[in-house]
Structure formats: C-alpha cells, structure tokens
C-alpha cells in the first residue's frame, strides 16, 4: 500500500490533513515529530510521499528531510515542507536539503490535493 506520511506536532493539523487526504482516497500514516517519523521508516515504513511541518520540537522539518535523503527507502521520495514561512531564504534552505516543495499554512484542501497530485501523480492511480 502506498502511504503518505504526515509529520506535525499539532494534533489538529495532523487530523485535518489526514482527513483531507483520506477523503481523497489516499492512505495516510501519522507521526507527531521527526524522531517518530524516522523510527517508523527505519522499522519498514516506505512512504510514497512525506509532508512534514517545519517548526517542531527537537529535529525540525528540514533536518528530517536531510536525514531521510540519506536512507535508501526515502532517497528519491517526494517531500513537502509545511510552514508558516513564505520567505525565499526558507525555501532555498528547504530546496538545498532536498525538499521537493512546500505548502504554506493554513493549507486549503484543494491546494493540498493539487500539490500532492503534482509532485506524486502516480499515487493517484494507487489511491485506495
């Protein structure tokens, strides 16, 4: 099963994004922080797309992407950064770390689904 992994320390955002993606037919896995996300992937989860918050306690989202790019199963996985920041320097930092793109909070459902379809179009056919 192809899954989208969402990483965010806010239960509200985890619930709302999971709801949007699940309603659209995607299978979703959640993690409350970067460390939990890494543990899930090291335990065998192979997500088809990662969406991570930027600001989290402990490891932040861009650091998580740097770590995931070192792992075989996520080396080529599309990864989106969720942030309240829209400054160019944050985007450049994310790109250098290997981010595929970003979503600026608050994320609207149609924008979220549009970006998911854009960066991972093959997921559409695999959606449940």
């Amino acid at each position, binding site marked *: 099963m192809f899954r989208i992994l969402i990483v965010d320390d806010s239960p509200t955002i985890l619930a709302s994004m999971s709801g949007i993606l699940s309603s659209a037919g995607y299978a979703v896995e959640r993690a409350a922080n970067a460390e939990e996300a890494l543990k899930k992937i090291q335990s065998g989860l192979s997500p088809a797309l990662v969406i991570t918050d930027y600001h989290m306690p402990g490891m932040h989202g861009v650091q998580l992407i740097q770590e995931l790019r070192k792992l075989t199963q996520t080396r*080529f*996985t599309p990864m989106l950064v969720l942030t309240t920041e829209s400054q160019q320097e944050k985007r450049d930092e994310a790109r250098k770390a290997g981010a595929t793109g970003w979503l600026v909070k608050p994320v609207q459902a149609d924008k979220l689904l549009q970006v998911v379809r854009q960066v991972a*179009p093959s997921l559409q056919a695999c959606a449940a």
Partner: protein
Amino acid sequence: MSARILAVANRKGGTAKTTTVVNLAAALAHRGLRVLLVDLDSQGHAGLGFGVRASPGEPTVHDLYRGSGAADLARAVRSTVVPQVDILPADRGFPGPDGAVVPLALATALKPVAEAYAVTLIDTAPTADALLVNALASAQHVLVPTQLHHLAVDGVGQFARSYFRVATTLNAELRGLSIMPIQVDLRITMQREALERLEHRFGRERLLPGIRPDIALAEAFGREMPLRYFKPRSRAVQDFDALCSHVMEKVLSI
C-alpha cells in the same frame, strides 16, 4: 498553468541538449520527482547517458513514425539506473519517418504515458524537422541551451520562430521558452556581450542559471550515468542543482 512536459531543443548542434536532459533529470529525481525521458534524437545519446540501449526489434519512441504510427508508447518505457527516472528509448537505426509525420503524433501518444510522471523531458535532434515540431507540439515549455557566442543570439532567434509557429498553430499549451547558457565563463568579453544581447532581445526573465565548463560532464557519458553518480562534488553538479531549483520554482511551479 504549471508545465509538466518540457522539450530541450536548439537547431544548433553541440549545445549540450542531451547533457542537459540527462543531468537535469537526475537532479529532479534527487528532489523526489518521478521523471520520464523521451529520447527523440535517433542518436540515442540520452539513453546512453543512463546506460539504456534499445536492441533491434525492441519498442522505441520512433515506432510512432513507422507504418501506421499506432505505437503503444507504454510498452517502450524502460527503467534506468536512477530509480525515479524512466526512458522512452530511441531507435538508433531509425532511417527517418515513413511518409508524412502527423504533427500531433507524439503529443497524442505521450499524454497517457506522461500522466504517471511529475516531469517529462524530451531530448531533440539538432534539426528543424518534423520530429522537432512533434516535440514542440507535445510540450508546455521549452529549454534552449546555448553557448554564449556571437551566433547564439541569432541561433536562439531562429529557434524562437519555430517555437512561436507551433505555439500559435498546433499547441496552445506551449507557453514558455527559457534560455540556458552553457560553458559559461563571464571573464570572456564575448560571453558577457552575448549574454547582454540575449537579455536585451528575449528578456532577463527568460534566462536560466548557466552551466560552467566541466569536462566531467563528457566523462560521465563514458560511464553511462549522470554526473552526480560519477563525480558528485563537481561544479557542474552544483550548477545543475541550481538550474533544477530554478526550473522547479519558475517552470514547474512547485
């Protein structure tokens, strides 16, 4: 609308079209995007850049231009050494099309195959033939690699006429042309002058970040892999990463 199918084209030869396709595809894959290459140049060098050759009788993109032209391109797709990059290989023995080429032949056949990819890059031959028209009729954006010398402005100008002809007659989705300087060394006066003329004629917003000279780009073809797998710290890898970021933001709108 953001572009998803990009043609890399210039009627002039030796402008690093294939080098661009191979190394930009690798850079996009390393940002997590699944990429399809279309090797429309029957020299098949984009395929060689990924270690892929179609043996005689195996399906290729050039099957579209034989007989009835009713080729199923999905059957021709091959995986490469890079997990996120697939290729529609060339027929290296392609003698030329059988009869007249339908201008939208590639566009029609490619559309369902390209839907599974975030980006499709089409490599083209350095000619102004029916296959170039097919490539432009399939794309939403064109990257034009060019050296910075006195003929560059004229050459890009000639190519731009083909681009506008296709955009106004065959393909209303073809909405962008970007110029990509190669072998850039701005210590050379001629190059600075050529760059100024390109900016003046086509606009600064159409100019992409350039690629500096790096012999490692040619050496990588000998290893049949993109440069980042052969010499990951080389300056051309840095340049292609900067180009990739620009293309993702300004062309693909990701």
